[in-house]
């Protein structure tokens, strides 16, 4: 299937169309909303499902040296991408050092929902992928935050000025609910294997795509509200960064995937992880660690610009890139 055919098929998938519905509803100021508690429950469900299924696949395939290599490469990318993003933002925009570091942190970390959407596209094409990429997603959440703190440090009078040390920050980020749910479900899936998966498949496998559609509707609503209220905070160079940075990260991840020996599906998901930008774990960490950074900039950019781009055009492109480096 060509890149254009893949992109067209992706754009017409229920997931993307429900996201578009939410986006359009928010931009048109509809009163359509998903209650906060429901949104959090849907997010927990998706983490549970994707984590458990990844763990069950590891139970079948076992831990390999290749898996360790992919995990280490993921950590290295998460450390490196914020540095590149920070330097670009400082060169092309007038963002302060702290704002640039906070934005860069989002691009070094990952979006688990983008990852989940990509797994559905890969599955839809009947392309196999390595289940341990869920673990790669989990370990790529945090290193970017550390990179961003180091980049911003010169711009701060002192760190942890809101009553917290770096240790307490790492504790709060490491035990963030989404990380605990994802890693915990992964470990339970690993421990119980295919037998465990069979026991709860009617809950975590069959309804998965429908729940994902509902969650993406909510993401569209939140992204639309963010764009409506936050777009004025984004200058043209910063807006452009929201599209260019995922492409740069994808190019870097494509090179990084070359020696890893991933399957085409695995490489596509690895590239997607690198190209995605966080909007759940990192924004909360930035409010703790860099409170001077403006959330209207990094949340609007990550959720209102990069997420829709990745969901609609990015994922097919990353699948095409994966075809170049995976056998």
């Amino acid at each position: 299937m060509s890149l254009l055919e893949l992109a067209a098929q992706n754009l017409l998938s229920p997931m993307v169309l429900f996201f578009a519905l939410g986006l359009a509803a928010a931009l048109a100021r509809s009163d359509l909303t998903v209650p906060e508690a429901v949104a959090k429950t849907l997010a927990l469900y998706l983490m549970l499902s994707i984590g458990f299924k990844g763990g069950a696949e590891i139970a079948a395939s076992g831990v390999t040296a290749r898996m360790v290599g992919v995990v280490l490469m993921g950590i290295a990318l998460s450390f490196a991408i914020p540095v590149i993003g920070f330097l670009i933002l400082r060169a092309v925009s007038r963002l302060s050092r702290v704002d640039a570091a906070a934005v860069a942190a989002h691009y070094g970390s990952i979006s688990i929902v983008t990852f989940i959407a990509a797994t559905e596209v890969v599955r839809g094409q009947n392309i196999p992928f390595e289940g341990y990429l869920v673990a790669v997603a989990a370990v790529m959440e945090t290193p970017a935050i550390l990179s961003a703190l180091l980049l911003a440090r010169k711009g701060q009078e002192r760190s942890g000025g809101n009553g917290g040390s770096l240790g307490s920050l790492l504790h709060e980020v490491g035990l963030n609910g989404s990380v605990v749910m994802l890693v915990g479900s992964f470990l339970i899936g690993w421990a119980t294997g295919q037998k465990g998966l069979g026991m709860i498949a009617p809950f975590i496998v069959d309804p998965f795509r429908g729940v994902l559609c509902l969650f993406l509707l909510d993401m569209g609503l939140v992204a639309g509200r963010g764009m409506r209220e936050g777009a004025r905070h984004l200058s043209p160079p910063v807006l452009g960064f929201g599209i260019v940075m995922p492409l740069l990260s994808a190019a870097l991840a494509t090179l990084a995937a070359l020696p890893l020996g991933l399957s085409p599906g695995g490489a596509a998901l690895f590239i997607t992880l690198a190209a995605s930008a966080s909007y759940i774990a990192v924004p909360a960490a930035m409010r703790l660690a860099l409170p001077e950074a403006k959330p209207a900039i990094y949340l609007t950019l990550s959720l209102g610009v990069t997420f829709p781009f990745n969901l609609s055009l990015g994922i097919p492109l990353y699948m095409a890139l994966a075809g170049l480096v995976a056998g």
Partner: protein
Amino acid sequence: MQTHLKKRVEIVVEFPVLRRLLDRLDRAQVTGYTVVPALAGRGHDGPWSSEGLAGDAGRMVMVVCITDPTRLDPVLEEVYAVVSRQIGIVAVSDVQVIRAEHF
């Protein structure tokens, strides 16, 4: 009925720093507090709403604490240590309570 003068401290703060704020209030040995979710509002950077948010950034909560006037300054110092750099507001007002020994 006899009433007693106390100070009511209202802190509207970002959810991610809530735990740190409550730790500080505990350290200030306040006798109690109540946390109330905030649904939506408007601040210096425009309107905000917690509807549909899957993450904690962007969510706001209000912490209400009633304390004796003699202990107000230590409480405010602890609160300020957390909220000085964050989005939010702190307000202090006079209130009358029925049971003085509770605060």
